[in-house]
């Protein structure tokens, strides 16, 4: 009787110990698995292949929490700017007919250097750095000067 009791107890403790270990190891292993975004501070993002990006077009790239407007000018050059309009925080778009960045909310215009040239925007758009490495477009935060 005492023998079965002891055996049962050992099985209980062993089983519970295994379950407990599982409930510790599972969170730990999940924690160590790299998350969707690899880093807290996004410093650069990949934005697809340069050869797939049409000349005289633009698209929004999610740069962490910041939307970034990546454009390719009609000369084939890549440029990127923060896509949030400096007027009332709408998202700007690329107008291939005007070759301008344009904010639909209040008809604000920015030139291809990100400068506000018409409409209500009070300030230029902050630029981002674009590099093309092995046909891959990489948008990154501009390095601070100095």
């Amino acid at each position, binding site marked *: 009787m005492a023998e079965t009791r002891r055996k049962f107890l050992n099985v209980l403790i062993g089983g*519970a110990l295994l379950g407990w270990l599982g409930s510790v190891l599972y969170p730990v292993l999940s924690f160590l698995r790299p998350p969707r975004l690899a880093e807290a501070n996004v410093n650069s993002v990949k934005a697809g292949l340069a050869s797939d990006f049409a000349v005289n077009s633009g698209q929004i790239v999610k740069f962490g929490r910041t939307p970034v407007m990546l454009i390719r000018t009609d000369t084939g050059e890549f440029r990127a700017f923060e896509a949030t309009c400096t007027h009332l925080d709408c998202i700007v778009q690329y107008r291939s007919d005007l070759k301008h960045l344009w904010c639909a909310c209040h008809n604000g215009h920015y030139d291809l250097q990100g400068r506000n040239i018409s409409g209500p925007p009070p300030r230029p758009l902050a630029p981002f750095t674009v590099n093309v490495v092995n046909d891959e477009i990489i948008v990154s935060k501009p390095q601070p000067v100095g």
Partner: protein
Amino acid sequence: MMTALRYGYRALCWGAAWCLCLGGGAFAQDAPPMPEGDQCVACHLDLEELPEDFQTYDVHLKQGLSCVGCHGGDATTDDMDEAKAPGTGFVGVPARTDTPRLCGACHSNPSFMHDFQPRIHTDQVEQYFISVHGQKLKEGDLKVAECTSCHTAHAILPAADARSTVYPLNVPATCKTCHGDAAYMADYGIRTSQFDAFAESVHGKALLEEHDVGAPACNDCHGNHGALPPGVASLNQVCGTCHVNNAQYFAESAMAEPFEDIELHACIECHGAHDVRKTFDAMTGVGEGSVCLDCHDEGEDAYEAAQEIYAHLAGLVAAYDSAAAQQREVVRVGMDDMDIAYLLKDAHQSLIQARTLVHTFDPEKVGARTDEGVAKAREALALSLAQIKEFGTRRIGFGLATLFITLLAIGLYLKIREIDKR
């Protein structure tokens, strides 16, 4: 369509910035060399007998245009009588009616001005005589503003210099000198409250309190030298210089023609003129603050349209607010809100666009945009709730872990009892 007008304001700013770069020398140095050998300046400085507003930084003085340029006389002699003798062209204080001609002698001459300020306009005098000021001056009214009233006579600076009386931040005060003086303006039968109204307006606050030179001063709507009260036809264009979409929607709306027919002043009927206040959604609708009710009554189609437009806006605002509140909760409990933030940005954008679309006065157009926004806000709300629910599922994990811990604890307890018995 990019009219020159739309570009006008930006061009002005860029132009000013250019002047800053190119003509930097004109006002960057504050200790100008006094014109040498100029006996007027030498004597009057010695005697300290100078015009009240005399400043050594005066842009003309620095370019070598000294007293005789405007007052006539001979600057080469140090004898005061000889310098002002007949035949020297000495005029003393020029008559007020004469100043536009005097200034225009140089400023209306493009080839002359080119040597000093290649980018400066040369049509100021021409414009001035179109203005009410100019026309009255022509009639011999000596109380109206002429060049020196705004630019001063002896302390003239480029408009881009912050010390200038015509620097954007200083313009309202400069105009106020006369237009805010009830006694002075009594003869003209116009209000003198514009400055106070302006100072309370969104534009005035931005300009005078926040020192945002992007905000309009008096001249941005009334014109600089050709100052006129904007007419019925031009008003929409004036506001539309900056508020492009609003003006365009209005011009294309069913409201534009009747407004013109009964000579209503487009924008200002609802928004006011000098006292333009920050807008709010209840300006539409039929409740308190509604501007639609100024003209429309219950029973009209417009009354219903106003109601509908307000309902659309209010619906989106409510949807946005409830989603934003949930987003804050998501952040507070430490869940991921990145996608929610993007969706809310979209919803907010729809709201801004819908508010602009109010100027179409078409409930369907406003509604179409608010529907987009509401959809985004709902999506954000659903995502927030999902995240909060997922936060709740932590409790399931907690329950499971608790189960194992409890089992283990019971096992240990029994084991301890067993061992203690031994």
